[in-house]
């Protein structure tokens, strides 16, 4: 049950930080959706905002760690160029592109994932900042709450696309 260093970093990237972000989304969405003056008491709003503030910042930090680890650590061995005659299973990008039946995993999947993923933390940070800055006032401003929900969801969609293709690509050409 040993993991290589690459496997460990890949696991941290996708199954720890990436997963934390994606799984926490539901709770954050429910918190934002329910943050309405007419639904909650003052104590309820304060409690909701406290949890939302912590949750959105945890998600933003998780998103940043996911993309930074993914780009600066995991992506390096993924795209490494193999020497002549090397076993391509150790070089995922070239392994995938060497076969027309798997090339799209890189040419579409990885190319999309590596870019769209970076949109997620920028949006997530904007959401976390606004929740922190405005706090209780969000319950009084439906337009702000709606905008937060939309931006939060877009952040999740971006991360979800990256996570989905990451999982498929790891299955097609694991990083060992």
């Amino acid at each position, binding site marked *: 049950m040993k993991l290589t260093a690459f496997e460990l970093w890949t696991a941290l990237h996708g199954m720890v930080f990436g997963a934390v972000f994606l799984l926490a989304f539901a709770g954050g969405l429910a918190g934002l959706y329910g943050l309405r003056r007419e639904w909650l008491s003052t104590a309820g709003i304060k409690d909701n905002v406290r949890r939302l503030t912590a949750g959105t910042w945890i998600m933003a930090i998780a998103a940043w760690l996911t993309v930074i680890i993914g780009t600066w650590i995991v992506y390096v061995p993924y795209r490494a160029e193999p020497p002549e005659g090397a076993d391509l299973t150790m070089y995922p990008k070239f392994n995938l592109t060497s076969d027309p039946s798997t090339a799209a995993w890189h040419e579409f999947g990885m190319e999309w994932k590596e*870019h769209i993923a970076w949109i997620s933390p920028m949006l997530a940070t*904007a959401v976390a900042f606004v929740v922190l800055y*405005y706090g209780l006032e969000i319950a009084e401003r439906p337009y702000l709450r709606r905008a937060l929900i939309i931006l939060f969801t877009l952040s999740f969609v971006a991360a979800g696309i990256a996570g989905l293709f990451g999982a498929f690509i790891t299955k097609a050409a694991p990083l060992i």
Partner: protein
Amino acid sequence: MESTERPNGPAAAAFVAAGVGSAALGVFTILAETFERVASFMELYAPVGPLSGKTTFAVVVWLLVWGALHGAWRSKEVSWKMAWTLTLVLVGIGLVLTFPPVFLAFAPEE
């Protein structure tokens, strides 16, 4: 409930800046795909390739724009319709330009 109404400027700044960052990433992606020299310039760290520069510069643009807009709008009530529309358009640009069939269409013919 006691409420101290803050102007919406800081929220607008955060949202618009996130949109600018997203659009910047899309633009840098297109430029790197179209021009070899830009791709080389974007290669801040060779093992990561041009992605290292595309993402780093997009984050730098995002932070600079956020700082500037926050400074300009912190005490202001801005047109929320304008700010929100701009945010959505810019995020949309980022999402479209980072979609492989779009940016790969700009790649020079081999």
